[in-house]
């Protein structure tokens, strides 16, 4: 598979770590993994993108969908560990202003 997704429940937040390529092929798998967290209405969801080497507009769509669901139940979604390349794609779509983005996982867990 081209994507790896892992979900952990920590005291401070639920963390979903992603690795590989998040594209039109693999984003359904990410959506499924996020759905579990979103259905449980977790207060604080951290998506650790440290392992992501590629993201396309389908990947962005999946993340926007998650953000909107979290906002609908007044939770918090944070992204962390974006490579310069992946952050660049968010910036191209002005999404760096929409998402709360932290450099490290520790920073994302703190707020």
């Amino acid at each position, binding site marked *: 598979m081209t994507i790896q997704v892992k979900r952990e429940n920590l005291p401070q937040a639920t963390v979903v770590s992603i690795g590989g390529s998040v594209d*039109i092929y693999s984003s359904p798998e990410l959506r499924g993994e996020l759905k579990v967290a979103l259905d449980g209405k977790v207060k604080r969801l951290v998506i650790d993108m440290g392992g992501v080497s590629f993201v396309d507009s389908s990947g962005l769509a999946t993340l926007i969908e998650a953000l909107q669901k979290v906002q609908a139940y007044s939770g918090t979604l944070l992204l962390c560990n974006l490579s310069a390349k992946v952050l660049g794609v968010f910036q191209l779509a002005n999404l760096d202003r929409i998402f709360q983005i932290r450099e490290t996982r520790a920073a994302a867990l703190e707020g």
Partner: protein
Amino acid sequence: MADPKHGIRVTIPSDVSYLEPIRTLIREIAALAGLHRDAASEVELAVTEGCANVIRHCYCNSDREPIDLTFAFAAGVFEVRIDDYGKFVDPSRIKSRPLDEVRPGGLGVHLMQKVMDEVTYTKNSWGGTSLTMRKRLARPGQEGPRKDRSGR
């Protein structure tokens, strides 16, 4: 068949599982063409978006229609053409949502236009849509074909 002097031509089925292999191939061809790694990543993104749009909007997610990709490089320009076998679509109707109307989707064409220097839709000879995207090789002093004879 593509004019072989101009690089490489690939036909894939309209199956999203082929996009990762195509991105890998782009990295290799881009290296031959002397494209910088970051620029190659941008071409990978643009081609993924272009193919995704063909698969979803032209072929209605059927995974067994043909998509032709043609990669060419010459005179400091890296060019990719994506040809489908569907109906030609009025290019004025192909555009992304405004960036501030945030919703899932509607960003593909915008990303292509951001990362490539030129994005043009035309009708191809068999009546389908041809998407041509060009990227200029930056910093001509530092970049260039890996070998003279690769730089055609």
